[in-house]
């Protein structure tokens, strides 16, 4: 099943050079992570060494080698956000979801990560969830957002 899904994505890149990152991004988008089967399948189909695929997949934060939750909660831990209380927002997120930073909840609903800057320091502390930005976030708001997403 997964293999058929993977093959459909890989098909687009057969016979082309320098496609690895784009291909991995496509798989990430489709499956929300890069499973081992995908790495093996790319190696079989395109002949790219497994170690090269692993190197790229482990390098970019956009690619995940572990399953990611439906909601990717990214709390900014950059300097500006940090001094404005980003850490407290992060703590609130950890508590509300019940996982540590860098982990994914067992129901695959949430993943929690820190980022180093989202490019809008004036809005700090900033939280980003699946491309949507929340400025001047407070621990209380953080909890509310998580609860809302959980019941959604």
């Amino acid at each position, binding site marked *: 099943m997964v293999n058929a899904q993977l093959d459909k994505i890989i098909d687009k890149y057969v016979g082309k050079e320098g496609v690895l990152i784009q291909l991995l991004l496509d798989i990430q988008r489709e499956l929300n992570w890069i499973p081992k089967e995908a790495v093996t399948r790319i190696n079989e189909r395109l002949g790219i*060494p497994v170690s090269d695929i692993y190197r790229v997949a482990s*390098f970019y934060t956009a690619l995940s080698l572990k399953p990611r939750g439906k909601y990717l909660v990214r709390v900014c831990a950059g300097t500006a956000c940090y001094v404005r209380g980003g850490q407290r927002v992060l703590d609130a997120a950890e508590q509300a979801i019940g996982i540590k930073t860098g982990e994914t909840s067992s129901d695959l609903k949430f993943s929690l990560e820190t980022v180093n800057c989202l490019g809008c320091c004036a809005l700090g502390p900033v939280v980003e969830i699946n491309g949507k930005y929340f400025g001047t976030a407070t621990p209380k708001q953080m909890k509310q957002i998580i609860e809302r997403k959980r019941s959604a």
Partner: protein
Amino acid sequence: MEQKNKEVTITVDGQQVKVPEGTTILNVARQLGIDIPTLCYHAEVSPFGACRLCSVEVTKHGRTKIVTSCNYPAEEGLVVVTNSDKVSKVRRGVLSLLMARCPKSVKLKNLGKLYGIDEHGLWESNPDEDCILCGLCVRVCKELVRVSAINFARRGVEREVTAPYHRFSDDCIGCGACALVCPTGSKKIRIHTYATVAPLKGVRDENFGVHIDVFSAKPENGTDNLINALLTSGFKNNLFDTAIFTKRGDGYSGEVKVAQNTGEIANEKETPLLRIKMISTLQEAIDQGKRKIAFIGLPCQVRAARKIQQTLQQEMPDLDITTIGLFCRNSFNPKKLREQIKSILNIDIDKAERTQICDNKFIVTVDSQDFSCDIDRLDSAIENGCSYCNDFVANFADVAIGTIGSGHSYYTVIVRTDKGAALLEKLQLTKTPVMKADIVKLSEFKKNRAKANIDPILREIHAQRSKEKKVN
């Protein structure tokens, strides 16, 4: 480079020379007998500029800058200084950082002494770190051995050299070239050398390996396939409860099979002369809690299995892997072999009932008819890495088995350990002496082929070492 033959004039430490455009500064300096220290450089692989130790000062159009000489190409009018105060300062800086990263490295300490660094004065984040991330092992594995078993992974302070998923790689053949070239002799990389301790017993022989016994044998009752007979008897006598081996797949391909009982060892067709990925299957079986495993593989895979057992010994004292090694001249790359056989013999290897190597001939049987060609003609189809392997007779297996050295329907058996002897004891065999000369011939052939490939790697290392001896 555009014009390969164009000559340019450059000046190195005041000496003017004409060199082909694009020659690296390091090579020009070496030709002039000027010493530039290096760590990540090796003449047989592409330069990488990772260690920064070969930094020199170049002046071009009146502007001076520091560059790495190993990958900076010579161009017209370039003025190079390899021994200025500024260069020394840069190298001292580089060395201090490397020494802070790898506090225990003797090589770095010696280099440091040369540049007057007794104390680097920097914070040492990990006293046991011994890898400077120069990527020389990665390049040797990719460019020379051509299996790309190891690579960089992650980034920033977490960057490291590793096999994918921190596990034993399916692609690694355990040639040890990575450990050979490592400038700091990193322990991390030694996990891939597979030059491991196996409980071998008996006499040591250059071509047969360490062995208790060697003979030709044929199973007496039932099957005429010795490996199947061994597996069946091993299962019956509870020597193992899982067997991992390869079997023929569709066409000329192979797949890994995991059997839990004798019923699953049907009389398979001859396995193809291909290297099938078995190591991850072995690791998965161990992950699933299997502890008594029979592993039938090529010499390189047997080395890996041994290493796995050795690595896990502390954690899993009950892990018991019985290794049956198969003689191997080399594996073939399925795609290239298919093309070669098509063009030389004009047959479709996917339809082959059987393939074998005999008397320097590659023999393909299709519709009970034999087709053959000289094995040398298939050199271009040899699987990556195989020409770096010097192990024909599976030196680390409990039992090594092959058809070379034995007559029709007989197998050559080399017993190397007590475990191997115990496995064979349970079996009724008709034995005859082995034709040793046939095995010696192929074993020597494989050794020489590997030597021819490893020698250029060693040459550079020896040159470096003798230079270091002179200095210290």
